[in-house]
């Protein structure tokens, strides 16, 4: 088995007297698809924010590609290959779709032709035809795709997709899942935080479930779906019967 590329060791995050996360330990291997589920307030977003550097853990360590990154700024983690998309799309409005991708690409020294790379990424998510359009005028699905495209622009090693399918129709969900699957097949490990259970079950190799900031289950999708504790806290008591 390969070593994990992303490792969370006994991470805790407290806001004053409130402990929002942990202690929690999670690992991610290269090319893995990890689903993260849990009810609202279970600590999923706090976990992501600790991974990406938006929040500094109160205790514990985060390792990425064999390097301790616990105190590393978000932009430095992003340059190492840790990308994320946001639950609520954050396009740079007032700029074109192409310019949205040029923002990260222009600052990467190993990209010889940022515009060509931007068009390549846009084509991979089906937005090439919208390159010249203003980002603020995109549909919800297109905004989700733009969010993914911007995260993918720098050829990340890990993508954290934070509810990338929220508010989409079944057909649109299939569309986004296909993008994530293609991306994963190219070697990118994906962490999917999602409330749409059929999507996360279908996509993930492994799923973890959080509840009140703690890890309550870690296993294969079928095992998680049948885990009594997961059913109780996530699906509700009725789902067990």
């Amino acid at each position: 088995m390969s070593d994990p590329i992303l490792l969370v060791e006994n991470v805790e995050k407290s806001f004053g007297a409130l402990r929002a996360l942990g202690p929690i330990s999670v690992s991610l291997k290269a090319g893995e698809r990890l689903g993260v589920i849990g009810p609202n307030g279970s600590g999923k977003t706090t976990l992501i924010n600790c991974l990406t550097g938006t929040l500094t853990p109160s205790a514990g360590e985060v390792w990425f590609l064999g390097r301790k990154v616990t105190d590393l700024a978000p932009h430095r983690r992003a340059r190492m290959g840790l990308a994320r998309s946001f639950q609520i799309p954050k396009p740079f409005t007032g700029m074109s779709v192409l310019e949205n991708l040029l923002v990260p690409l222009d600052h990467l020294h190993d990209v010889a032709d940022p515009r060509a790379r931007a068009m390549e990424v846009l084509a991979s998510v089906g937005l090439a035809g919208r390159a010249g359009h203003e980002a603020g005028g995109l549909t919800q699905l297109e905004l989700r795709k733009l969010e993914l495209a911007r995260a993918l622009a720098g050829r990340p090693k890990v993508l954290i997709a934070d509810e990338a399918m929220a508010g989409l129709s079944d057909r649109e969900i299939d569309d986004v899942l296909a993008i994530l699957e293609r991306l994963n097949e190219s070697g990118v490990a994906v962490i999917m935080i999602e409330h749409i259970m059929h999507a996360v079950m279908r996509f993930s190799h492994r799923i973890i479930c959080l509840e009140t900031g703690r890890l309550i289950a870690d296993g294969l999708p079928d095992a998680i779906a049948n885990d009594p504790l997961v059913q109780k806290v996530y699906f509700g008591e009725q789902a067990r019967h």
Partner: protein
Amino acid sequence: MFLDQFVNAIGTGVMLGSIYAALALGLAVTFGLLHIPNIAHPAFVVAGAYVVAVGNSCGFDPLLVALVALVPFYVAGLGFYEFYARLFERRGAADTMNALTLFFGVSLVVETALLIKFGTNQQSVSVAYVGQSLTIGLLSLPYRLLVPALLAPVMILLLWLYLRFTHAGIAIRAVAHDERALSVSGIDPRWIKRHAFGIAAATAVVAGAALIIIGPVDPFGGRLMIGRTFAVVVLAGMGSLPGTIAAGILIGVSESMVSAFASPSWAPAVAFSILLATLALRPEGLFGAHR
């Protein structure tokens, strides 16, 4: 007689408005794009005017002095932003009130420093073109207004091109929209904001050159500009550079017309009346985008 007065009121208003845009340009960057209400910007402009006056007293043209002083003003801007960031942003306390308080203090420090060094006497520049006018038919354009007025479109065009076509410029526009999204794109938002603040401070010395070519300047001259420069930025639509010149000219022409056909004492109220009326009908400003 009426036509003559009307044409010249328009001409003077356009020049005056263009100069307002030059004075407000730095604020369009710090307040309009970075959302930092740098109330000290007019004081920076006055400091720029003093630097130009000192250079001119050594025999150099004001615009040449301003060009040379761009670099030290840029560096000073980096320092002011870093000071602000360390005090507030890093502690998660960067709100409007803290920024206003800090930069109000900075403006007082700048004024006091100028007062200690130069006293209360007004400073001025001596250039060949001050006192002469360009006459086109009924229109008479004094060079002491025309030369500074031409600076604004040049500054705005250069800055617009920079924001549109350079890597750092695109990142400045991005940080204006979402700092967190920029940081997960691999770019340090603080570096970008510091750079933008430096650019804003650099525009102050050019605006200072424009100001002192128009007439003598004293250490407290910045106070008179605070309201008008903020009015230009908000009326323009936060961070819009074409809007900045349009808003400046709208206010300048309106003030000039009121001065010519009503009373000069009414002119200062015009900027704020236009601002209030526009915001009532179009809250995002003339060229601002819906948020």
